[in-house]
């Protein structure tokens, strides 16, 4: 694991960090990285009805250099694993990973005794920040995941939490 230690920025004090993380939390640029069925729900979330733009996250950047969040939406097969590692490395700091769907969390419906093709879960080789269960998770679940990540980045939750009545 070639983890390079990440030094803090040159100018770095507490209140500045608060302001920067507030800005970062409300403009999370995800990477267009749809693998399978969850990618379609991710597109539906970005489209007109569920509209991820309300939370600042609708700019799906194709190049890893320009994005903050890698939403692993789908099954990671053993042939795709080196590509996922490369993409994760090429993302600039600060970066986060959302494991969307059961396949990204634990291999989902494709885990059976004697399976040869998939990596059972993104956290086998990626530091995952947010897990969104579901197969595929509904767009609302993805939006809740984005809000959860915003809370993790800034420390407080700006949007009302949905109470299960």
């Amino acid at each position, binding site marked *: 694991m070639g983890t390079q230690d990440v030094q803090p920025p040159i100018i770095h004090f507490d209140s500045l960090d608060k302001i920067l993380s507030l800005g970062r939390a409300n403009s999370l640029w995800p990477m267009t*990285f749809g693998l399978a069925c969850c990618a379609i729900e991710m597109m539906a979330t970005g489209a*007109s009805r569920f509209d991820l733009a309300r939370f600042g996250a609708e700019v*799906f950047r*194709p190049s890893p250099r320009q994005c903050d969040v890698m939403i692993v939406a789908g099954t990671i097969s053993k042939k795709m694993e080196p590509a996922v590692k490369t993409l994760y490395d090429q993302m600039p700091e600060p970066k986060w990973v959302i494991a969307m769907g059961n396949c990204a969390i634990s291999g989902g*419906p*494709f885990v059976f005794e004697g399976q040869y093709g998939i990596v059972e879960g993104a956290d086998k080789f990626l530091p995952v920040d947010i897990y969104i269960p579901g197969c*595929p998770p509904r767009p609302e679940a993805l939006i809740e995941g984005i809000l959860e990540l915003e809370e993790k980045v800034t420390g407080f939750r700006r949007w009302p939490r949905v109470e299960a009545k």
Partner: protein
Amino acid sequence: MNGFLQQDLNQETFTLNLGPQHPATHGVLRVKLVMDGEYIVEAEPVLGYIHRMHEKMGENRTWAKFLPNCGRMDYLSALSYNHGYVAAVERAAGIEVPERAEYLRVITVELNRISSHLLWFGAFVLDLGGFTPLLYAFDDREQILDLLESVTGSRLTYCYFRFGGVYNDIDDAFITGTRAFIKRLRKRMPMYDALVTKNIILIKRLKDIGPISKDMARRYGATGPVARGSGINFDVRRHEPYSVYPEFDFDIPVYEEGDSMARYMVRMDEIEQSMRIVEQALDKLPEGEIKPKKAVKMVKPEKGDYYHAVEAARGSFGVRLVSDGTNSAYRLKLRSPTYSNLSLFGEAARGMLLPDALALMGSLDLVIPEIDR
């Protein structure tokens, strides 16, 4: 690059990866392109980046346990895949399906076909550079997803069909909702037609781009809108009548030009035809059972191999199952249409400009997990 030496060309070529993570491939397809400037000298799709072992799972699960997998191969027209698998097992085990269940199957499959074509329409024009049609198409598609969710319970990866019938009956809200949706979509299609189909930029980007001749489509086994765009009148619903399709009258749009514009027009006309089928099916919906009286628990088809093909949104999806009399398949082969449709990309994209090759790939309407299975 099989046997393509660099020195053959005094003009150097470079190899470009239209890689697994690329907005235009709509999934994890990688195409190794040998380029001379902007012209493609050699295109070789590389698959397997989302191979999920569906056929291996077919062997170590019982017939009923494989049902959720059907919805996860081609998740855009998942109900056609449910239909293909369930009909194949019914043919093998000789299970009868009540009349009303067949009608429900046709209604939900055709609605699913419309939603698949709408998503293809949005994504295809997005590949060519227009972002707004995607938002309109997804808005319509959400209406269908609401309707199908009220009946099947899921939005995308349906598991609605059972051996011998369907899981849930439809209620009046579904019927009125579907009729209202069809009326609304009929008002919006002229808008898509005027804004996008007659748009000079789209016509310039699609006319005579990626010609696929009738013979090339036959040699590669291309089916569905890709074949019908090249003048081949082949639609499994009409060619190999199954379920209750013979009772509806709908026509098969066939275009002779064989370029990306023809394939685009075939799919846009098919949306209209599917709406006609749904309307006729709703009018003639018989009463009666939707499931066999005694639930079909142990399915044990006799030994031998069986084949059943259905018309999925992308072509003829065939299921070849070899059963050895036990309650799980001895071998389950899933013939996916996009697998053959994409295999002609290597020959069709030779000598094209890169942006035109992306227009061709978009017109093939690819769903990668269905190719890799």
